[in-house]
C-alpha cells in the first residue's frame, strides 16, 4: 500500500478501536445511569426500577447495546441523556461552545506567543530578561493547573474584586461574558504558553548552533532575521507534533479550570457524566474528543509534511 494508504488504514483502525473503547470504558465502571438518577431520598419498588431500565435500554444484552451504539453513531444520533433531560447533541453543542470560547483563544494565543517568546528566549539565552522569563514560565509549567487557578481566583476575584466569582456569565451580555471568561482564559493561555515556551526554547537552543545558522549569518543576516527566517521553521517541527499530542491535556486542563471557576463547559459535563455514569453523554463527549484529537494529529501530520519536505520525500 502507498504511504498515505497505510497511514489512512492506521487512522481508520485506530478510530474504530477508540470508538469501541468509548463504548467499553463507561460500562466497565460499577453502576449504570440509573444508579445515581433519582436522588438519595427516593425509595423505588422493583417494578418501577425495571420499567426505567428498559426505557433506558439497559436491560438488553451488552452486544445488542453495542450494535445499537454503532447504528446510532452511523446515523449521527448521539442519543438522549436521562440525567440532563436533553438530547446529547444539543448538550454537547452549547457546552462545547463555552469550552472552545475558553480553550480556543488560549490555544491559539498560547502557542503563538509561546513559540515566539520561546524562540526569542532560546535565541538570546543568557540575557537577564530571558532568564526572568524562563524562570517565571518554568514555575508555571511546574505548578498543577488547578492550584494556580485557585490562587488566582482567590487573589483577583475575592481580594481585589477585579473579576466575578463564578459562572460563565451573569447578565449574558458580551461584555459580561468576556468579563467572566477573561481570568480563566488568561490562566489557560498561561499554561499553554508555558508548555510551548519550554519546548520551543529547547528546540531553538539546539538548532541555533547548527551550521546553517552560521552560514545564514555569514550571508549577512542580522540577529533576529537569522532566527525568524531560518531557525524558527526548523525549531517549529517538534512543537507541531507535541501540540497534537497535547490536545488531550488541553481538554483535561480545561476540566480543572471549569471546576475551579464553576463554569459548565465540556470539562464539567464530562466530570459530572462520569460520576453519574451517564452513558450517552460520556459516549458523545468521548467521540467529540476522539474526533478532535484525530483531526489534531492529522493536521499535525499535514502541517509537518508541508513544513518539512524530507518527510514527504521518504
Amino acid at each position: 500500500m502507498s504511504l498515505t494508504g497505510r497511514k489512512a488504514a492506521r487512522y481508520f483502525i485506530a478510530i474504530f478501536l477508540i470508538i469501541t473503547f468509548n463504548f467499553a470504558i463507561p460500562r466497565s465502571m460499577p453502576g449504570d445511569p440509573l444508579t445515581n438518577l433519582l436522588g438519595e431520598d427516593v425509595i423505588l419498588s422493583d417494578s418501577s426500577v425495571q420499567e426505567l431500565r428498559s426505557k433506558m435500554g439497559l436491560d438488553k444484552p451488552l452486544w445488542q447495546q453495542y450494535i445499537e451504539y454503532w447504528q446510532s453513531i452511523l446515523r449521527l444520533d448521539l442519543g438522549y441523556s436521562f440525567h440532563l433531560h436533553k438530547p446529547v447533541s444539543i448538550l454537547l453543542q452549547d457546552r462545547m461552545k463555552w469550552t472552545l470560547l475558553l480553550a480556543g483563544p488560549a490555544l491559539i494565543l498560547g502557542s503563538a506567543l509561546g513559540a515566539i517568546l520561546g524562540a526569542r528566549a532560546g535565541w538570546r539565552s543568557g540575557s537577564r530578561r530571558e532568564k526572568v522569563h524562563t524562570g517565571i514560565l518554568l514555575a508555571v509549567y511546574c505548578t498543577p493547573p488547578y492550584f494556580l487557578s485557585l490562587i488566582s481566583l482567590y487573589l483577583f476575584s475575592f481580594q481585589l474584586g477585579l473579576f466575578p466569582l463564578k459562572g460563565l456569565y451573569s447578565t449574558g451580555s458580551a461584555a459580561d461574558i468576556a468579563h467572566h471568561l477573561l481570568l480563566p482564559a488568561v490562566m489557560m493561555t498561561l499554561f499553554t504558553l508555558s508548555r510551548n515556551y519550554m519546548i520551543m526554547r529547547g528546540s531553538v537552543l539546539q538548532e541555533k548552533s547548527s551550521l546553517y545558522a552560521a552560514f545564514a549569518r555569514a550571508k549577512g543576516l542580522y540577529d533576529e532575521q537569522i532566527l525568524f527566517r531560518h531557525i524558527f521553521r526548523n525549531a517549529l517541527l517538534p512543537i507541531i507534533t507535541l501540540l497534537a499530542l497535547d490536545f488531550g491535556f488541553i481538554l483535561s486542563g480545561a476540566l480543572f479550570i471549569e471546576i475551579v471557576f464553576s463554569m459548565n463547559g465540556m470539562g464539567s459535563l464530562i466530570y459530572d457524566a462520569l460520576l453519574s455514569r451517564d452513558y450517552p453523554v460520556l459516549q458523545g463527549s468521548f467521540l467529540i474528543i476522539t474526533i478532535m484529537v484525530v483531526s489534531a494529529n492529522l493536521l499535525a501530520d499535514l502541517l509537518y509534511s508541508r513544513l518539512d519536505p524530507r518527510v514527504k520525500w521518504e
Partner: protein
Amino acid sequence: MRRSLYLLASLLLLCMLMLSTASMGAEEATGEVLKIGSPNVIKSASILGDSNMGVFAHLSNPTLMKMAADGTIKGLTAGSSEVSDDGKTWKFSIKDNLYWSDGEKLTPVDVQFTFNYLAENYPAAGWMKNTVDNISIQEDGTLVFSLNKPYSRLNLEFATYPILAKHIWESIDDPMEYTNEGENVGFGPFYIASTDLGAGVIYFKKNPYWKGTAPKFDSIEIHTFANMDVLSLALEKGDVDAYYKYAGTYPYSSIDKLKETGNFEFVEKDNIGLIFLGMNLMKEPMSDLSFRKAISYAINYSEILKLDALGYGKVPNSGFVPPSMMNFKETAKLEYNLTQAKGILDGAGYKDTNGNGILEGKDGKEIKLTFLTRTDYQRPTELMVDYLKAVGIDSEIKNVDSSTWIKQKDAGEYDLTITRSTPWGMLMHANWGTGYFDSRRTGEGVLHVLDDAKFHQLCDDILAATSEDQLKDYAYEVQDYYAENLPAIPLYWNLVETPYNKAFQGWYSDPLYGIFNVDSFLSVEKTQ
C-alpha cells in the same frame, strides 16, 4: 517585531481593566429583589426530573400539606385534612383563594389530576398505584382518597409532591423528561419566570393573582454555586443575601468568618437527618450484636463532634432518632469506653492469639474490615479507622465515588460505611429512619440491611396505625429496638445553621425544607 509584541500585550491589559470596571455596576433588577445562594446545582430545568429543581419549584407549585416547625403535618394548599377511623379514607378540603399565575383558578380538579397523573407517570409516586384505589371530589369540593389498606402517613407523603396545573400538564406525557427554561405556571406567591442554566440562576416573579398575605419582594433569585467557598465569598461580599441548602447545613468551618463580619444572623435548628456508621448486618462479624456493641463503645463521640461538626451538635443516643423528630424517646446515651469495648470483644470470643495487636475472628482468621467511603466522608472515616485500631480491629479504607458506593453497598461488598440520613429519608417508609434499614425497600441512599421479622412487623404496624397514640407507642418501640440491636451507630446529632444577611428578617424554618417554604417567603422582609 518586538514593538508589535509590546503593543499587543498593552492592548490586552487595557481591555482587561476596561472590562472589569465596565460591568462593575451590573444593573439592578426592577423592584425589591431577594437573592439566595445555594450549593444545590440544578442540572436541568425539569421540576420532576431534577431533584434540586423540584425543591426550588415548591415555591411556585406548593405541596398539598406542609410540616410545621414542631414536626406536625398541617395543610398548605389543603385547608384541612381528616382520616377515617379505619385509616382507609382521607378527606382534604382545598383553599379557594388560590389562582394560577396565568389567571386560572386552582380547583380540586387540579389536585385530583395531579395525584392521578403522578401515580401514573412519576416513578417516585409509583407506590400510590397499589395503595390508593380512587380519588373522588365531593360536591362541596373536598377531595376523598379511598385506600385499599390503612396508611397512616398519607398526609406526610403529600407534603412533598408539587400540585400541577391540569390545563398545562395534561398534554405532557413524560413529566420526568419535560424541561422548561422559560415561564412555569405556578399558584404559589411566586412563579418561575425563567431558569438560566449557564449562569446557574432561577428567577422567580411575584404571582399577580396571589390573594394571600402579600410578599414583600417583587422577585426572588436563586443563585446556585458549584464551589462552596465561592458561595461563602459571595455571601460575604453581599452578592447573595441568604443561604439555603436542602437537608444540609452551612459549612461549620466557615461560620466564624461570617460572624466576624457582624452583618449576619443564623437560623439554628436541630437536624432531623444525621451522620451515622452503617454496618453490613448480612455479613460476619457485623451480624454479631456484641461486636457492634463493642464498636459503639470504641467511638470517641465528643472528638468526632469536635472535629467533624466543630461542636455544632451533641453526642447521640443509641436510639438513633434525633430529639427533633416527633415522638422522640430518650434512650441510653452512647458512651466512649475503651476498656468496656475490649471487654465485650474478649467476652464474645474475638481473641488476639498471635499478639500482633489485631483480633482474630471466631473462625480464627484475622479480622480485616472493608470500610467503603465516599469523598465527602473521608475525614470521619479516617477517625473511625483510628478508633477501631485502638481496640484491635483492623480495617482498610476503600475510597470510591457515589455511583460506585451505591452499587457496592447494594451488593453488600463492605463491612462498614459512614453515610448520612436526610430529614425526608428519616420520614420515609415507616418514619423514624426505618426506611434506611428495612431490607424490603431499596433506594440509592438506603442500606436495607435489617431482615429481622420483628422489625418488618413493626414497620407494617406503623404504616397501618390509625391513631396518634398508636403511632407514639410504635415510635417508642422502634427507638428501643435501635437501642438494643444497634443496626447503625449515630456519630453525632448536628445543628442546621442557615446564615442570612441582617438586612433581612422574618425567616421561618420547617424541619423538611428549612427556610425554603411558602410561609418563610411571605414573612421575610428588609429590616427598616
